[in-house]
């Protein structure tokens, strides 16, 4: 028990600390690296909660794909982050105010949830059908069996988004040399070499 709480505090402190570093680090590359650390620590928290599937997804999707994408963006775009951060302290009071309001709201929601008489019932309700197996299996059963139709529908939405992005932005630029292996390999000698009889003293 004590080990579990120790692990919890370790991961929690790591998460909050690295999240803080994401916004205060001067170098944007360091920010992204701290972001990855924050993701890892929250994955640890998920494991402690018994949600191993979410933990793995967090590592694979967020660390493996999203953070790397961020890294690309940070490195490829020429953004002057020092300049962007100029007004950081100026906006601090308003940001703090919003944060306090959010905190109070969350506390109110949690309190209402805690004291409502029907809350335990409602909390137990969605868990009843998920009782079987571990949560990877339960999630799979929900997504790929119960909500199969919606899952496929979401796939169609993404397909349309891809087609749309290509239709609206892709331009075929002339004069770009592309590699076409089959054409290169199937080139014959008489297409590539031309025999010329060069008169002496005149050049080609």
């Amino acid at each position: 028990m004590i080990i579990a709480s120790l692990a919890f505090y370790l991961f929690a402190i790591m998460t909050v600390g690295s999240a803080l570093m994401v916004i205060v680090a001067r170098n944007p590359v360091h920010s992204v690296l701290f972001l990855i650390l924050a993701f890892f620590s929250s994955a640890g928290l998920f494991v402690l909660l018994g949600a191993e599937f979410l933990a793995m997804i967090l590592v694979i999707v967020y660390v493996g794909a999203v953070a790397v994408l961020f890294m690309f963006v940070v490195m490829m775009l020429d953004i002057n982050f020092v300049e962007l951060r100029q007004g950081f302290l100026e906006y601090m009071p308003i940001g703090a105010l919003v944060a306090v309001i959010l905190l109070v709201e969350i506390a109110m929601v949690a309190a209402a949830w805690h004291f409502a008489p029907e809350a335990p019932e409602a909390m137990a309700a969605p868990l009843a059908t998920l009782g079987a197996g571990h949560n990877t299996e339960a999630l799979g059963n929900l997504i790929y069996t119960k909500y199969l139709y919606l899952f496929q529908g979401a796939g169609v939405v993404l397909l349309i988004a891809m087609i749309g992005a290509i239709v609206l932005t892709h331009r075929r630029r002339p004069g770009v040399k592309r590699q076409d292996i089959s054409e290169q390999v199937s080139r014959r000698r008489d297409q590539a070499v031309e025999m010329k009889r060069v008169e002496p003293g005149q050049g080609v």
Partner: protein
Amino acid sequence: MFVMLQTVFPDLSAATPEIFLFIVAMALLMVGVFAPAARAAAVVGRLALLSLVVALVMVLMQDGVKVATFENMFIVDRFAIFMKVLVLIGSALTLLMSGRFFAEMNARKFEYPVLVVLATLGMMMMISANDLIALYMGLEIQSLALYVLAAFLRDQERSTEAGLKYFVLGALSSGMLLYGASMVYGFAGTTQFAALAAVLKGGEVAPGIIVGIVFIAAGLAFKVSAVPFHMWTPDVYEGAPTPVTAFFAVAPKVAAIALFLRVMLEPFGGIAAEWRQVIVFLSVASMILGAFAAIRQNNIKRLMAYSSIGHVGYALLGLAVGTSEGIRAVLVYMAIYLTMNIGTFACILAMRRQGQYVEQIPDLAGLSKRNLPMAIIMMLLMFSLAGVPPLAGFFGKFYVFKAVMEMSALSSGWTVLAVIGVLSSVVGAFYYLRIVKVMFFDEALEPLDLPSGRELGLLMGLAGAFNLFFFPFAGPLLRAAGNAAAALF
């Protein structure tokens, strides 16, 4: 510890037309990529048209017994079949008239027919939605494809502006709809239509449910462009490429009305008294604005936008009545509306001067001398849109007002609604007749070209003939609409 959960494979037979269209869309993408670039767009366009027709046949072959599948998220009944037939006809005919337009604009791409097929798939999913989440999925598939279509002529500022405007406002309306759906889910505890109907049988209704219904209605009103959620319509209709405007005016509107009817009557039918006044307001405001705002328009596409706002008002009047008579009237109205708009947009697409597309009303001046058949068909369609007997448009309005007057025995307020409807259709007649006057009595400075291509002539002829000789179609249409409406009660 593995516990094998029993998996029940969903019954796919009810959704075969949708599955077919989805597979076709993916196959057409492949065809478009691998076909020779010069012919890809034409080939894909033809195949897409063919597959819409095949899907239409598949829908017609379904027997109309109520079947729910995919864990009750997808439902097929006579109502769904009727609406899907309308949507597929609308999509196929507008696809037919678009090929030449894009070819002449030098913007013919194979993605266009694919997007039309995917949008149609979304509309069919909307019509068959039996769950709030499924409703949202269908709506998003349809809307996302439509945003791209609106901006399809990406080198024209008007078109991209239309696409962006539609996207931003559409996203807002989706947000409202989702908010409403989450309220309903929060207070009723389910998203399934059948379960919602069981929970909401009348009596005391939680205020959260009513707020949710109002937000859902607002989101749907945006999609059917009912006042006060109509602001996007004139700009998008004007800016989008004309065949896309024709598509917008026809298929998505029919699908959104179908969704509106099903959502209001199936899950929330038991508490109709709570939402009826909202629909009445939407309907009256749309009829009045559609009639008055169109008067000052000079661009015929903008005019058709206001005209469609007005027509949605009449259709919603039938929903406000909420009886099976009223719903039957809405279905007949939408079928007739579809033919009138297809014909009118075929005429608009035939408006060209020296190879350039024109879309101002004064450009039509002197059309009767240059091209009498087209002028006569346009005149018929305008009279039909205005609701002049004995054309089809008159019967559309007639059945709606008849359903309203049947309710007036219960409360005198309904008579007022019918009077407002008749008066606004009289005002609306002014701008339809103005087009007829311009075509027949104004002198042309420079005549329009003769239409090129057979498709437009064919569509104009079909639409004109349907509207002029509505009587033989009236019986079967009324019977089919009656059966479809009965499925909702």
